[in-house]
């Protein structure tokens, strides 16, 4: 379990990182919680690692009226301790304790999780549920991509080989915002067998702009749009039934697709209670 030989460069600015990414077969190194394991198992063998951990300013959490902006190098542990995230992005605060273990959360970054885009990871689904924007800087400058369009396929995102994900922008939760999060993992800290991140705006008993983002059920996080429609009307059981049309999870070593679909329904009932509880 030794990585294949690679070169290493430490970038001091985003521009420098983009410059370094121009060389053939380069990869960004952030928290390294996924990349280092794949290197050691020789599942990936990049020629150059571009370390962005030394770039100043990428670990800021900034709050404006409309958005909370989370820098790409914000570590899970830092986010867990952030009162701004707890207040403005309570869904992320709900999800964080489910991510790995303390050692992983001390090192792993929010930006790294999105860029890696593991289909069973918590944060990509949270971004979709929250309608977040992903800020990207590339050779042509800066752009923002909506979370719904960011996750393309298994470990594939809107990032090109020369892009740096620099920040995440999440709309600030209002008094009407309702969030819910639950997942099933065989052991605490494991990637979920299936999980659900949800966000809505309450309007009396109605849930507007309801977003149900499942993870661990396909190549990317999956919006359960039929279930959303049913649940928005307050019919949880119709939502559970609708999941069969929304989700088609493949079998994996922890659970078959049938088990995942069943568990997705159990999660929906639990998350629906969370969304309702918050409303009352």
């Amino acid at each position, binding site marked *: *379990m*030794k*990585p*294949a*030989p690679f070169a290493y460069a430490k970038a001091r600015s985003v521009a420098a990182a983009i410059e370094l990414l121009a060389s053939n077969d380069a990869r960004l190194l952030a928290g390294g919680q996924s990349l280092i394991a794949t290197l050691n*198992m*020789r599942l990936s063998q990049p020629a150059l690692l571009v370390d962005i951990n030394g770039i100043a300013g990428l670990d800021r959490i900034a709050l404006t009226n409309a958005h909370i902006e989370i820098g790409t190098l914000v570590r899970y542990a830092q986010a867990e301790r952030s009162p701004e995230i707890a207040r403005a992005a309570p869904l992320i605060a709900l999800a964080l304790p489910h991510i790995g273990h303390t050692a992983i959360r001390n090192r792993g970054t929010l930006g790294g999780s999105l860029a890696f885009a593991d289909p069973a990871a918590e944060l990509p689904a949270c971004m979709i549920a929250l309608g977040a924007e992903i800020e990207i800087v590339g050779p042509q400058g800066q752009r923002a991509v909506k979370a719904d369009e960011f996750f393309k396929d298994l470990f594939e995102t809107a990032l090109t080989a020369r892009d740096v994900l620099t920040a995440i922008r999440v709309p600030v939760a209002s008094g009407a915002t309702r969030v819910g999060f639950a997942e*099933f993992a*065989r*052991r*605490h*800290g*494991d*990637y979920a*067998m299936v999980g659900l991140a949800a966000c809505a705006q309450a309007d009396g008993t109605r849930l507007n702009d309801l977003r149900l983002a499942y993870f661990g059920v396909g190549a990317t996080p999956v919006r359960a749009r039929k279930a959303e429609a049913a649940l928005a009307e307050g019919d949880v059981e119709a939502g559970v039934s609708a999941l069969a049309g929304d989700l088609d999870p493949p*079998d994996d*070593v*922890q*659970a*078959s697709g*049938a*088990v995942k679909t*069943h*568990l997705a329904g*159990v999660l929906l*009932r639990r998350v629906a209670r969370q969304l309702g509880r918050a409303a009352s």
Partner: protein
Amino acid sequence: MRITDDSPPIVSALDRPNSYIGRSVPRPNLARLTQGRAQFVSDLTLPRMAHVAFVRSPHAHARIVAIATAAAAKAPGVVAVVTGAKLAKVITPWVGVLTHLKGIKSAPQYAIAIERACWQGEAVCAVVARSRAEAEDACELVEVSYEALPAVADPETALESGTPVIHPELGDNLTFERVHVGGDPDKGFRDADAVIETTFHFGRHTGVTNEPRAILADWNEGEGRLTVYQGTQAPHMMQNLFAKHLALEEHQVRVLTKDVGGSFGIKVHTYADEMATVALSKLLKRPIKFVADRIESFVTDIHARDHRVKAKIGVKNDGTITAWEIDDLTGIGPYSVYPRTSGIEANQIVNLTGGPYTCPNYRARARVVFQNKNVMCQYRAVGHPIATAVTEGLVELAAAKIGMDPLEMRRRNLIPDDAYPSSGPSGIKFEALSHHESLAHLDAMMDYAGLRAEQKRLRAQGIYRGIGFASFIEVTNPSAAFYGIGGAKISAQDGVTMRLDAQGALICHTGVTEQGQGAEAVIAQVAASSFGVPIERVRVITGDTDSTPYGGGTWASRAAGIGGEAAWQAGKALRANVLACAASILQAKPEHLDIRDGAVVDRDGGNERLPLHELARIAYFRPDTLPPGFQAELVATRHYVPRAWPFAFTNGVQASYVEVDRDSGFVKLLRHWCVEDCGTVINPQLVDEQIRGGVVQGIGAALFEHCIYDARGQLLNGNMADYLVPMAAEMPDIEVGHVVTPTADSELGAKGAGEAGTAGAPGAVMNAINDALRPLGAKPLTAMPFTPGRILQALGRISESTPT
């Protein structure tokens, strides 16, 4: 009358002044381990040392057509690229059979595969380089052409005529078969009011050690000597095997085993890659190191427990068990593992099933078959978790069928505590066990009646909790009956050499080994107590075939019971020698003297007569002052092997309390109890740690651990993310209680405690889950691990034909 306190007091026969027996003294190796100053093989470096990495077969079964090594040989840092054919010139193959397992057969296994790879992960080529990283880089340049062959994956079809025979020269894929009939099973089943029949499945899993397998071999051509630093449980066994297969004599081989980062039975076998490492050192005449990485550990460390057991019990309406029947089938990979064989696990299942109970009517068949998966062999509590889960699963299914409380069912069938000596349905002999007293202790400890009331109350609220039990027996302190009589050069006896040093401290060499379980502490406690010094003045030396007495090492829960008794006897012998010397100095009679707390004292009254450092000074530096003709002998060696009984069986009972979520199929472990009887408890804390750690490994089997193979013999989850070892967050509090029935086979009276936890936990958890789900009409769960999917299936939440 036996003692049933949870922290048993010092047993009277051993109650010498300043005794450490029965006290939770801290381990002497604790500071070394916690300060990072332990000597693990993984950390060792030697001058001129090179590292080996192996090219491993990606196929479960394939002919090796050609191996192109030229590109790898030219890679940076590479010392040598060695194929199986080349290595076979320095090391001979081996065959894992024992003569007392009648009919067992296997094929010659080579250090590196030559013609065929027979499982995914078998080494086909070695690359030696300056660093492990360079060796791995060069491995990628070795081009192996394979011709894929059909893989035998499913034991159920391994013996069918259409299935390829893995080793054609053996005639079929049957490794070993044992049939046993005890009493009159046919009559037993005829006499039954109810017969319950089911099939149990046990998931293939493995022991996951903190430190992987590690070996550093150093052949010194000038000295004609091979020094091997190895993380092993059995240094003398390995010395014999290295010598035998490298055409050396045993005195030419020195095996050194200092600290080992966990073993669990994984490190007591001959591994092809470790044998290859030793052979490479001889071939290349320099130190070669191999440390298995986690990924290769999953496909090379022995697996265990892959069994399908069809089982049947007969029971009368009054609860009397009338008959047992089992049909066990297990696939053990392409080779029977050397030298202990892969037939022992199935053999133990036949031996142990029904063991705690009086019913003698028993029919058993066990078949062990070859297949193209990683090899299986002995892992902690060999066969016990399976035999116990089958027996206890049957007992609770029978109790449910006749509507009897599961504890009452056991009270009516467990061998009475006053019926010993006794024997089990397979004919195994018991010296003295305490099933009923253990059960009574457990009943009180867990407040069984209170828990049942709580369970009933919560069911009314839609919360489904279950209570499950497992009575068990455990094989410990094995005599030569285990391996020696089958022709294996595995020592059943063990020895301790004690020396008084020049300042009156005790230097203690033992043949048993330290794996992190605390053998050093136990030997130090016994030595200090037996001889009479403070424990701080005892230094224990283990794991060096040049200097420690010949012994078996650490396995089958033998270190405390066998190694401890050798230390007890050596301490007595050295005390007698020292007192002879003291008597001649003091002009007293030795029988009027004793050694207490580091000084020679008057036996009566305890007045100090001579500190040991003064005695040592005189004996070593001024022997001229001793009487003419008197020679002080300040070294003594004693050996011990159990002779009266082939094994010192222990017993106990476990209980598990779980909550099952009927919606998700998830199991929450609420509490776990174990009452065990390992005879004299030398160190209560270490015994409790052994029980708790063992229970956790048993829970791993019940709920989490599973080496999942596909139909082509490919391991699908061979990494720490997908193979689920039990973790602290999911574990319940584990309460441990003791009943003490010492063995009369030794003065110390200690039996083993290393495997009791693992033996009982899976059955207890299984029974608890089924108890929780019974009111829901769920089909009893009998296939481990009990995943959410399997539980949902039993509850009818997902269909039975759907994969889980």
